[in-house]
Every structure is written in structure tokens, then in C-alpha cells.
């Protein structure tokens, strides 16, 4: 799905000199991602793995030309500022890796981005990857094989687990999209499924959800009304989660009578989407829906 990112996508890394930023810049470069610049206020003029570092996005764009996408490794309290800086300088895809950003900051910059047609992935996401082409994230690339399954998820390691199960059964992935583990995220399942529908390479979609909120229920409702659709298989984490407790992700909490496992599972199943009991069942269910 080259719609989001591809080998010619020009990438900026914000917070490139930090431990995570620098480490993953190296891995992304090795994957073939075209990183043209990095920013880190006060560290301008240096290089990280050969990538020039600038103090501001303005300067990065002026020196290196426009960038299409940015990946943000900036600490939580400065992350929203980094997002605004990217959007205000024409970046159309912003991947926010940072975890722990205050909720009301997220509400503001996510609305700001959406009103300008900018796609935000995250916050608290492993990123986005067009398998074999471009990695804009922190996922371990080797577990993903290239293929025709679209992967969209609210989680990180669980996505890798399921990608590995798919690989074991010879299912490859076209694009993997991390929506983010926070209550407010830039995109949701519906947004990304629409992209998969338009993508010629994607034949089926694996949806990895979890307790909290109603994104899965809304997707089920949307899916059941579609005339033309590609098959979907789901896994939902958090069947054993008690209400009112945050399960690691800020967004994984059953609250105000919303977001429990049962509701998600039954909504998906009544929309005709099979839900796997364990990660290892995902490829088996996939085989069934693809046979139909």
C-alpha cells in the first residue's frame, strides 16, 4: 500500500539524537527508508548515522527540501509541539511513537491534524510499514513477510506476535498500521480499512483490537453496511481485564459501561467478522475467510 509510505517517501525524524530516535533511525535506514533529515533543538549541525540534524523543521525543509512524513520520538511533554511544527511545515503523515502524552494535548493536535487532512498515526504507536519498502516505526522487521494481508492494530508486540503466526502459515503482510494505544488517536480502524479497500495488493485485513472505547464496535457497524468489502479477521485482547483498570495502554480501560471484550466480540461477529481466541488461530480463520 504505497498510499501511505513507499521507498520514495521523504522522511524526517524528530528527536533524532535521543536514545530511541537514533537507534531506530539506524534500523529504518537499514530497511531502506529514505530519511532526509532529523531535528533536535540545540543539536543542529551534527549528524546521526549520516543523517543531517537541524534545530528546526523550518531549517530542515529549507536545506533538504520538502518532507512527506515525519516520525516523532520526542519526549511526552514536548511531543505535541513537535507535531504542530511538522504539520505547519507541510508534513502530511506524522507517526507519533511517544507514549504518555497528556490527553488534552492529544485532543488538540489530533483535531488540528484532521482539519488539515494530515494523517496522524498514534500517539503510542509502533508506526507504519509497507513491508519490504518503507518502515516508519519501531517494529522488528524480520517477523513480517511481504504479502496480501493488511494489518491494523492498537498494539505493538501483539502485532508482531500475530505477524509471526501469519508468516508461519505463509501469509505475508502488505502494510502494517499501528493506530496507537492511547484513547485518542489520529486514525481509527475505519479510516485505515478504507485505505486497504483501495489498495490492490491487499486481499484481506487482520484487525487487532483491545478493550477500551468503541473503535471495534464502530468498525463492525461500518463493515456490516458495506456493499463491497474485503474479508476481515479479528483478535481482541483483554478478555480477562477487570473493569476500571488501565491495562498498560492509556486507552485500554473499560469505563462508563463501554469497552468490554464481550461487546466488541459480539459486534464483530454479528457483522460477519470471525474473532480468534488466541493469536495462533488468526491464520486459521484467515484461511477460512479467504476460501469463501
Amino acid at each position, binding site marked *: 500500500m504505497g498510499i501511505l509510505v513507499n521507498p520514495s517517501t521523504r522522511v524526517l525524524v524528530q528527536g533524532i539524537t535521543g536514545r530511541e530516535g537514533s537507534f531506530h533511525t539506524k534500523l529504518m535506514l537499514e530497511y531502506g527508508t529514505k530519511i532526509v533529515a532529523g531535528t533536535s533543538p540545540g543539536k543542529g549541525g551534527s549528524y546521526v548515522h549520516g543523517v543531517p540534524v537541524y534545530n528546526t523543521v523550518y531549517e530542515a525543509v529549507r536545506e533538504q527540501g520538502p518532507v512527506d512524513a515525519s516520525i516523532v520520538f520526542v519526549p511526552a511533554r514536548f511531543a505535541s509541539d513537535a507535531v504542530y511544527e511538522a504539520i505547519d511545515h507541510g508534513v502530511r503523515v506524522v507517526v507519533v511513537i511517544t507514549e504518555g502524552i497528556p490527553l488534552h494535548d492529544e485532543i488538540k493536535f489530533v483535531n488540528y491534524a484532521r482539519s488539515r487532512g494530515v494523517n496522524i498515526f498514534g500517539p503510542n504507536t509502533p508506526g507504519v510499514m509497507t513491508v519490504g519498502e518503507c518502515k516508519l516505526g519501531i517494529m522488528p522487521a524480520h517477523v513480517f513477510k511481504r504479502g496480501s494481508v493488511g494489518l491494523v492494530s492498537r498494539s*505493538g508486540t*501483539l502485532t508482531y*506476535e500475530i505477524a509471526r503466526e501469519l508468516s508461519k502459515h505463509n501469509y505475508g503482510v502488505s502494510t502494517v498500521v499501528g493506530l496507537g494505544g492511547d484513547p485518542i488517536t489520529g486514525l481509527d480502524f475505519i479510516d485505515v480499512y478504507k485505505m486497504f479497500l483501495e489498495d490492490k495488493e491487499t486481499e484481506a485485513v487482520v484487525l487487532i483490537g*483491545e478493550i477500551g472505547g468503541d473503535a471495534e464496535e464502530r468498525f463492525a457497524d461500518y463493515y456490516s453496511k458495506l456493499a463491497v468489502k474485503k474479508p476481515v479477521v479479528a483478535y481482541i485482547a483483554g478478555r480477562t481485564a477487570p473493569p476500571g483498570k488501565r491495562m498498560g*495502554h492509556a486507552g485500554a480501560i473499560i469505563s462508563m459501561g463501554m469497552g468490554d471484550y464481550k461487546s466488541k466480540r459480539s459486534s464483530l461477529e454479528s457483522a460477519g467478522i470471525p474473532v480468534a481466541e488466541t493469536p495462533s488461530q488468526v491464520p486459521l480463520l484467515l484461511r477460512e475467510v479467504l476460501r469463501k
Partner: protein
Amino acid sequence: MKLYEYESKEITRRYGIPVPRGRVVENPEDAKRVAEELGAVVIKAQVLVGGRGLAGGVKAAETPEDAYAVAERLFSSTIRGEKVEKVLVEEKVCISRELYLSLTVDRASRRPVYLVSEMGGVEIEELAKKYPDKIHRIYVDPSVGYSDYMPREALQALKLPWTLLQDLANIMKAMYSIMTDYEAELVEFNPLALTCDNRLVALDAKVIIDDNSLYRHPDLQKLYGRDLTEYEKRAKELGFNYVELDGDIGVISNGAGLTMATMDSILYYGGRPANFLDIGGGARRESVKEAVKLMLTHPRTRVLLINIFGGITRCDEVALGIIEAVKEVCARKPIVVRMLGTNEEEGRRILREHGIEAYSEMDDAVKTAVELAKRW
């Protein structure tokens, strides 16, 4: 982070929203004294768990002597497992109608939303299930904030007379200020009472603060962690995400989703998870050791299941952490390990030297842990 009712009401009062007169006290003598001032009172246990009313945490007292007796009983009780340390003694209000009004964050529209219902006094969970049509929603654009049409709309939904418009407007405006000033996830009045003399009074108040914003609110940050269990507290201090459950298979994993999936698989194969413990990404030997020690000494845990998908987390670091923990703790609980990914071979070798054979498939490890828990 949830605030207690009395804390929420202090804020509410400061923002000009009417609340009943009252005081929070820590012993029956003081409860009696407050009742002497106020006359007939309602005494409310200050706990953070939900469903307080149904659990007997709210009682009326007509005389100061009653107040003493009621408070004494509450202080010696627990509400859904939570000990009562403080009670709020409030004047009894003559209620004509109980309404529901809250301001929260709607994930779907990514905006704050007022939830308004004429059917107050019932928990919103129940209200949403039984009468979803009776909840009116007013979405707020965060770049604009509160606007005056909102109380007009809410007034209609609440079936209140126009004479109360200004009062309702003041309340809704103040709620929005509380949400933005305190970075709240929820500001809720349930019930918001229409009194017999036609006033609007917040009989109960609940404010939940966004944990991620606490660094900007040092006075609130001090309060953080007070509703955690002993093990939740210890895990928090070590920097883990931890939640207590009631099973007997201890769970340690990396990443929230995988940790939940591990717990769920335990249930699927017939066992019961004791906890949720996510060591996060890139955990080092020291922190793995602390996590394993925590669960080895956890009283309800009979078997420990460690499920690591190595990416930035290195399997050799994990293995070393496990071995060190086992050496330091004498508990002889079986440990089942599944590890995969970065430096997997080295991790396996380290474990094998100490008699632990690591699995590479999650299902196999989970099944073994469940079997062991049954036998142990």
C-alpha cells in the same frame, strides 16, 4: 486518577457550582459535631470504588446522635473491599428530581462531550445500557470550547424550566473550565439535583484527572497511587504497568497487548491469570529481575509464566534477570518461559544451564503453565 467526592466537591464549589453544605471528617465525634450545625444530614463514605450507594456507603441521619452511630458503623466497614477512612457529612437536601450531567472525552469524535440525562441517580454504565436514548450528547470543538447554545440544548433534554437557564449555563461553563484547568478525563455530577425550592445542586461529584498530565499538576501528583493494592504500588515504584487479578498464574510479558493476550490465552486453556505485568519495551536485566522477584513472592501465584517477544527487548537480558531473581528468592514456584526474537539463542542457553527449557510457541508455554498450576 480518581479524586474522592469531597475533593471533587471542593473544586466544584470553588468554580461556583452549588454543592450541599458539609464537611469531611475522620471520626464519629466530628461527624456528630457537623450534624449539630447542619441538622438532618447525609453521611457518605469516601471511597474510590464505584457502586458505593448500593454497597451501603451512603446513609441518612436525622439527629447528631444518629450521625455519630452511622459514622461509627461506616468507619468500621469496607465498601467493596475499600476501607473507609473519611466520611462526608452533608446537609440533607430536599430533592424534586435527580438529573445526570457530565463532561467527558469522546473517543470517536476525539472531542469533549457533555452527557445529559433526565434520569440521574443511576450509574451511567446502567443508564447507557438500559436507556441509551435518554442520554443527550453535546460535542464540543476543543478549539472553540463551551458555547451558550449548549445549556439551552441541555435544558430541553433535562426538561427544566427556562428560569433555570442561567444557573445551568454557569454550571456547564464551570465544568468546561474544570476540565481544561485540571486536565480532567471526566467531570460528573450524578445526581445533579433539582431541589424542592427549584435550585440546581451537585449532590455527588466525580472528577478523574488524566494520569499523563500529572507532571503539570504537582499538587495532584502527590496524591497519585493511593487507590493501588500493595503489589500494584510496588510494581508502580519499579516502573511496571501492573494490575491485580484473582487467579493463580503469574504473568510477565512485554507490551500491553501481548500481556493481555497471554492472560486471555491462560483463560482459554482453562487457567486463571493472577495479574497483568508489562515490563515494557527494552527492559534490562535489573528490571526483569525485580519483576520476577515480585511475582515469585506474590502469595496467590503458584506458577509464573513469562512471555517475551524480543524486539528492542533482548532475550539474553531477560534470561539473566530471571536467573538472578531465582537465586535471590527462595520460593520454589515453577517458572515457564517463552522467548523469541532478539538474542533468543543466547537467552535459551542461559536458561538451559539453570534447568529451564524455554518454549518458542506461546500456546505451548501457556498450556504447560495451566497444567502445572492444576498439579501444584
